[in-house]
């Protein structure tokens, strides 16, 4: 813009208009960037804080859970179903024809050890907690879990079989710390 400083000349007038437009856009851009960088920390503060993130893994001791029993543990404020499956339950989960499943996944992809099924106990329809953990609970038509809110049936691998839920119960990331204990998250 150094070559525009010729007051009075026709070219000077023209360039002056250009310069004003340039300055206007520059000011607007600086304002937009400034506002965005002021808004960023505010929005970011609404995400999980450090202490919330620190609570995002849970260790579970599996030793007391007998075959056929199930326990519910809390991970990130949500229930996680841990079921010690019987040989019959494992067999029924494994022999299902994948073509019959709304969300086809073989049982082997959903477990690390076949006797232990670990899934997030939140119905994939609208977030209710399905029944089936306690002895007297209805377990639905497939022996897994039944969600009382809108009638979704899950099988012994936690897969959706019937009802409005679109997907299988989620499998959280977990590792076997020892043979009888896991860390979720």
């Amino acid at each position: 813009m150094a070559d525009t400083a010729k007051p009075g000349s026709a070219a000077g007038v023209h360039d002056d208009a250009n310069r004003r437009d340039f300055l206007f856009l520059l000011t607007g851009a600086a304002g937009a960037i400034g506002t965005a960088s002021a808004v960023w920390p505010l929005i970011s503060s609404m995400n999980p804080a450090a202490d919330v993130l620190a609570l995002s893994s849970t260790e579970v001791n599996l030793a007391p859970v007998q075959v056929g029993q199930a326990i519910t543990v809390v991970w990130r404020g949500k229930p996680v179903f841990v079921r010690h499956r019987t040989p019959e339950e494992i067999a029924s989960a494994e022999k299902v024809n994948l073509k019959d499943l709304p969300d086809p996944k073989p049982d082997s992809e959903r477990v690390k050890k076949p006797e232990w099924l670990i899934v997030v106990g939140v119905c994939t329809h609208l977030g209710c907690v399905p029944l089936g953990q306690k002895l007297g609970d209805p377990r639905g038509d497939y022996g897994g879990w039944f969600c009382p809110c809108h009638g979704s049936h899950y099988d012994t691998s936690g897969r959706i079989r019937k009802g409005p839920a679109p997907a299988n119960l989620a499998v959280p990331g977990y590792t076997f710390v020892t043979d009888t204990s896991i860390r979720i998250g």
Partner: protein
Amino acid sequence: MSATPSLLDNKLVKWFDQRLPIVSTMHHAGMEYPTPKNLTYWWNFGSLAGFMLVVMMVTGIFLAMHYTPHVDYAFASVERIMRDVNYGWLIRYIHMNGGSMFFVVVYIHVFRGLYYGSYKSPREVLWWLGIVILLLMMATAFMGYVLPWGQMSFWGATVITNLFSAFPLVGNWIVTLLWGGFSVDNPTLNRFFSLHYLLPFVIAAVVFLHIWALHTTKSNNPLGIEANGPQDTIPFHPYYTVKDLYGIGVFLIFYSLFVFFAPNALGDAANYIPANPLQTPPHIVPEWYFLPYYAILRSIPNKLLGVLAMFGSILILFLLPWLDTSRVRSARFRPIYKLVFWVFVICCVALTWAGGKPPEGLALWVARIGTIYYFLHFLVFMPLIGWFERPLALPKSISAPVLAGGKA
């Protein structure tokens, strides 16, 4: 400048505006508003105050998402904001120092009004609304300072609420009502949080009235004379929008120096000690913006009179349009008032200094002399100077002093 089309040229906007004239009203008030063309940078502080109100409300809303108003959790929840919440330290330091910045800006705004006679007819209501805003700000700032539930929070709350016990007969009843108990405790903290969240919205409403009154009587200016016509004014946009934005930029540098390099410089270290109702800190001081009033309170060795003098030091501002008997607004044309004004500024600074010291020795005497002078200024000097002072000749118009040397 290349012609920017008005928003009102848009058919849809026009349709809407004919049914609710919000766009044309905003255009009228925020762009066309005829503003005296001789405003100096002292006129930036009104818009800066409005900017600070927005900053405080926005940061405050985000802090409230993480704060717990309970005596057992309040202190820890503030520390959690500082350590765990993403950018929590930044948001809290902006809010914490923002309180001080808001008062810096508003005090300059008030002293500008005092210097240029902005309280005089026809701007009395505009001035009153400004004092109402100042009082609401003080209440909001005080209650906000209680929320972190540190030692200064607790003992500040105790001392300030006890001020009301000075009133005969109803005093103790008022204090119990304020506390919701028999000492500053959980009910007090809960209601202070509720009111601290509410009052800024009340302030915003009074600011709206303040601006409405301003746009009715129009802006005062450094000459203190009315604009004779369009030749003395310029549209608010782009002239003063740009000037105000520039002012905000410079102000943000000053503000950021505190937020990023000295975030606790204006605070009291004792407020990082959790509140202990069984032990008073050795030296209780309010935040700096309350120090002059605190000095006035302590300078009078009588509980009720001290409290009355403290409240009176602000309430007296309501009478200013009649205490000042001069018909000339701007101190530029009032040689004696100009001098007395600066002595008054020094008096306020001295009271601020004295309010921060223990009430003994030199500080106590500075506070006493300062208190007497403070009231003398309003009750004696202002009415008298208006009578005997000979003001300088006022210019014929806002344009005249500028054009005099030129062709006009």
